[in-house]
């Protein structure tokens, strides 16, 4: 039952020659209710690190923000940013120590670009971690890992990586029971993190919805 809580979120990641690409579905839902369709599950831990998280909303956001704030503290206190390896191990240790007290149900993918180049870490809610070239979490993994195995090559360019992800998403949209219309794609490379669309073009970060006191009608609030 614990495992099923993290299964519905789709997280995908591929590493290329000089970047890491992460994709996550955008729906926040539990049981038969969909809360929202524009959830951003990929956190920017710092200028050159991304963390995609899956699981119940509370654990997911709490754990992600906790890791994010501690990384910021480390960067400020030490004037040298932590490596991706260090950040991933820090997150893993937090999960491991909480595991036998009050565990977080959070599966994650940590992607970063540092002196050693791009790296991707697969971490599961029981704090098992592995450095990988391609990864997927949840039910989505059953459909996409084989596609990645078939089409991923070493030292892919960003276009090649995107085409693999497009194939994965197509597979999910065809064969996976749960509707997955929209995904958020984020890439991290030597220039840092940015949000991109399916064609590789940079996209503005999604603005949070604002509700002005002056607007009374519902339709205005929906804009």
């Amino acid at each position, binding site marked *: 039952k614990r495992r099923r809580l993290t299964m519905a979120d789709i997280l995908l990641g591929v590493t290329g020659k000089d970047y890491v690409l992460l994709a996550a579905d955008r729906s926040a839902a539990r049981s038969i209710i969909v809360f929202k369709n524009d959830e951003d599950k990929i956190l920017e831990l710092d200028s050159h690190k991304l963390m995609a998280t899956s699981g119940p909303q509370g654990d997911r956001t709490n754990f992600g*923000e*906790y890791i994010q*704030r*501690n990384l*910021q*503290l480390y960067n*400020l*206190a030490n004037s040298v940013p932590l490596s991706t390896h260090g950040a991933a191990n820090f997150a893993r240790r937090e999960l491991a120590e909480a595991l036998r007290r009050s565990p977080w149900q959070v599966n994650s993918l940590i992607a970063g670009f540092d002196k050693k180049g791009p790296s991707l870490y697969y971490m599961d809610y029981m704090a098992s971690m592995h450095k990988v070239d391609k990864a997927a979490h949840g039910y989505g993994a059953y459909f996409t890992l084989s596609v990645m195995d078939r089409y991923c090559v070493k030292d892919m360019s960003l276009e090649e990586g995107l085409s693999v992800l497009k194939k994965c998403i197509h597979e999910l949209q065809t064969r996976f029971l749960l509707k997955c219309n929209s995904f958020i794609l984020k890439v991290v490379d030597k220039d840092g993190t940015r949000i991109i669309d399916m064609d590789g073009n940079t996209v503005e970060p999604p603005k949070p919805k604002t509700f002005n006191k002056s607007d009374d009608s519902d339709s205005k609030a929906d804009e």
Partner: protein
Amino acid sequence: NQSELDRQREREREREREREREGSMSYDRAITVFSPDGHLFQVEYALEAVRKGTTAVGIQGSKTLVLGVEKKSTAKLQEPRTQRKIVALDGHVALAFAGLSADARVLVHKARIQCQSYRLTVEDPIPIEVISRYISKVQQSSTIRGGKRPYGVASLLVGFEAGEPRLYKVDPSGTYSQWKASSIGRGSKTCLEFLEKNYASDIEEKDEDPVKLAVKTLLEVVEAGASNIEIAVMRDGEPMQIVSDEEIAAHVEVINKEKEEEKKRKKLSSVSSWPN
């Protein structure tokens, strides 16, 4: 004879009483309890320690905040890069301190944790007033309970709160207050007097550079030379930036020229005022 002995005994008793009193006074000086005349000696000694530290100035413009410090001369074999007196507490807050650098290091670390903790719970960058209050709370807590000595550090904090620039000063006594321009450390009295004469809150509207004012203020107390001054600038929405040595040297040149011209002017005007 009897009166002599009495007087002797009186004198001995007086000496004993004095020794007792001295004993209790040295007790006052050791930990932070009040002295009979209402002083907290340890806090005052901490302020003395700050007064021995290198000077720091802070200036609030309408769009820019400037922190300037006197750079302590480094030993020949020492790496100057590792001596940092202006530190970033978070992306939007910077701090310059005067006093014991070891105490400052501990305080800065505590403050950094607090900045992130605030962001985690409130999801907003910490307001400058709140972090100043936190630092002063930490400093005050060591003046009230047994065994601890106060932190021998005074700090100047700068940052923007909702687009408005803010400068705060924190004392070893644990008091904090907002300033338009301030100074701490060994040259602070001179610098403060200079700033009172030369600071105007609309410096930037008058097209004057608050960085130049900071350099000018520090030159009053520092041995002349750009190598003895370090300046950091903070603008709204941007992290703190350390001003390059070249820029400081350029300001120093301009200031020195202006001083020369001012001297010449004064000489001429004093000559013209001589009676014929």
